């Protein structure tokens, strides 16, 4: 097992996480204004896909980093509009595929990718998105071949990181560790989000193996890059709860459940509060999570119906065991969401 800093020749130098989050907000706001100013498109000047595509990626990134389902919905709305308004643009279809995959609409996402391919779009971006969907749907052999091929053709942070995550999800620890380290050493950007995401996925791998110290170590590394990184905060709170340190879990989850609209965090906070004997507040968060699960299950059944059913099945008992909500969109969509460019 490798800990942060072990075997890594040089720590990537990245922009401070607080600055990066502030700038991400500004970037989304600024691009939103630009995209708005280009509307409505004219027949001679159809909606340019360039800036809207960047905005879609940034919304997905912010949705992932801060645990905001609303950002995913905005990205999906814009991608849908773009794909309908820029007929014949493979990039628009690729963007819609990404947002559809975010909400676990995998069959439609694959159809978009096939349509984009028919329009002549090829290359690494399309293959990477297809590999992610195949991986998510359990087509591991095909996904693995795509990941390995991409890493052979272009061994950079994105392809090696995706390969590491592939092996990590299959529990192939040695292979995953090797590629996590390789990917980290090849990082050449200054955005902290991709590295935070990679470290998070490494922590998730050890979390799945029941190695809490290793998992905590990598989740902590992720949070040192980006203190507001919601997926790592949520997982560390899970570890706190498992250790019986409910107050620590509550300390992490209370601000997270307030700022994130992912009901998983509200549900986790309710469980931690209940376990700590704070039943009144636990009930409030439980109610909030229930309402949000219902809403999201209606809007995005593929992504949320299962989690909502699991949550309802437990009822108001406030069972302290964590729900199986680790694959809710903000947390499932991790590595690629943080590194949408250069793929």
């Amino acid at each position, binding site marked *: 097992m490798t800990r942060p800093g072990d075997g890594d020749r040089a720590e990537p*130098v990245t922009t401070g996480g607080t600055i990066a989050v*502030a700038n991400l907000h500004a970037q989304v706001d600024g691009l939103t204004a630009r995209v708005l100013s*280009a509307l409505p498109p004219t027949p001679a000047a159809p909606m340019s896909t360039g800036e809207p595509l960047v905005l879609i990626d940034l919304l997905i990134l912010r949705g992932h980093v801060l645990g905001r389902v609303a950002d995913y919905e905005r990205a999906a709305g*814009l991608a*849908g509009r773009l794909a309908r308004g820029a007929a014949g643009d493979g990039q628009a279809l690729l963007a819609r595929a990404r947002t559809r995959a975010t909400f676990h609409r995998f069959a439609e996402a694959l159809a978009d990718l096939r349509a984009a391919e028919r329009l002549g779009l090829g290359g690494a971006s399309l293959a990477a998105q297809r590999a992610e969907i195949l991986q998510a749907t359990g087509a591991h052999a095909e996904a693995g071949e795509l990941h390995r091929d991409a890493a052979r053709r272009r061994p950079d942070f994105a392809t090696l990181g995706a390969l590491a995550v592939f092996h990590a999800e299959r529990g192939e620890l040695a292979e995953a560790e090797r590629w996590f380290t390789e990917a980290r050493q090849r990082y050449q950007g*200054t955005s902290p989000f991709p590295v935070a995401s990679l470290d998070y996925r490494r922590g998730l791998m050890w979390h799945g193996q029941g190695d809490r110290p290793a998992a905590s170590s990598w989740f902590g590394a992720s949070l040192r890059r980006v203190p507001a990184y919601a997926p790592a905060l949520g997982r560390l709170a899970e570890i706190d709860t498992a250790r019986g340190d409910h107050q620590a879990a509550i300390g992490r989850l209370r601000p997270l459940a307030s700022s994130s609209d992912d009901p998983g965090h509200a549900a986790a906070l309710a469980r931690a509060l209940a376990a700590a004997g704070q039943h009144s507040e636990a009930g409030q968060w439980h109610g909030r999570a229930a309402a949000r699960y219902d809403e999201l299950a209606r809007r995005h059944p593929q992504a949320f119906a299962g989690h909502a059913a699991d949550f309802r099945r437990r009822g108001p008992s406030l069972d302290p065991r964590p729900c199986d909500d680790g694959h809710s969109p903000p947390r499932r969509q991790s590595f690629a969401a943080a590194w949408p460019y*250069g793929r």
Partner: protein
Amino acid sequence: MGDHFSSPRVFGDPAADIADVFVFPSPDRPGHVVLVLTVFPSATVTSLFSDAITYRFRIRPVTVAAPGAGPGYDVSEDEYTFDFTFAGEGVGGLAQAGRCVTPGGEEVVFRAGEQLTAKSPGLRVFAGARLDPFFIALTGVRETRQLGRLSFKPVDANANDGQNILAIVVDADLAAMLGPGDGPLLAVVGETVTSGGHPVRLEHTARAELKNFIMSDKQFDPVNRDIEIRDLYNSEDPFRLAPYYLDAYRARLNANLAFYDGLDGKTDWPLNDRGEHPLTGFLLADFLVVDISKPFAEGSYLEIDRAVLAGRPHVTCGGRPLNDDIVDLLFTLMVGGVDGPRISDGVDQATQPATRAFPYLHSPNPAPPPLTPPFELPQVPDHAAS
């Protein structure tokens, strides 16, 4: 869009994304030269410089190359730099601390948003959010590129109206900092480079729209129709391009410059027998050339370059003043030749033209154009409408 959004690699860190570089003799302090680097397109007043990036001006003396000797200029190996770095603070109402290191090694510490006169004789620096001086009729440009013919309106709206950027401004007595015999022609490049460890060049920028207008479109490229080459080009040293991807850049520029040349239905830039466009080599050596012996003059952008291409002496300071209409000047050069009739995109100045007093750029717009709602927020998932 100047150089805004010209590098997919830095989309994830907008503080690394160079928007524009300007250089011009100071209009209010004769003998001084002003350098301006803008980053973070569509910034807000809360946007911050990265604490992991060095923002750099690189300056090299140049002379006009002998006719037929190459891309236009002989570049000296001597180099002078201004390096700007920023602290990680600045969030929560504190002004971000910055540091400038001059070519002579002097360190100047300042706070973003404050104007500062350093100990060096007459050196002034500024860094902070400002109104973006870039202006463009984006719809006209888009239609022109889409339709393959000039499609500008006589009068159009500035698509960049009200947008902010983060700006770094230096006003220095450059002549006093140069070695003996250096100048008066200087080549200037702006760069963002990673700080600490092995430095990685994220972007370099000089001539406006080289990457966005001329390098980004892939459909005419006979070699690489699915490769984004701007990241590769951005990582290059513009004073010495590595040989590895040179042919890819040349193929892209040869094809796209020929497209622009044909927008008026005639050929002003015939390709040579190897299929090379006369501007390709010239533009790939991407730096702004300024004559610091000449006084400030607006409308001087590309004038020295055009004079070199025409084989005649230049008459202005060249460089790139803040208010120059670079879209008009670039289209005029690409479409009509060195001295072709002026082509206008219908937007001739920024909504608030830059001033002639330091730091030259206007205060930022506290409320850039409408931020929300961005578009129709989906009340139902997009599959219901698709």
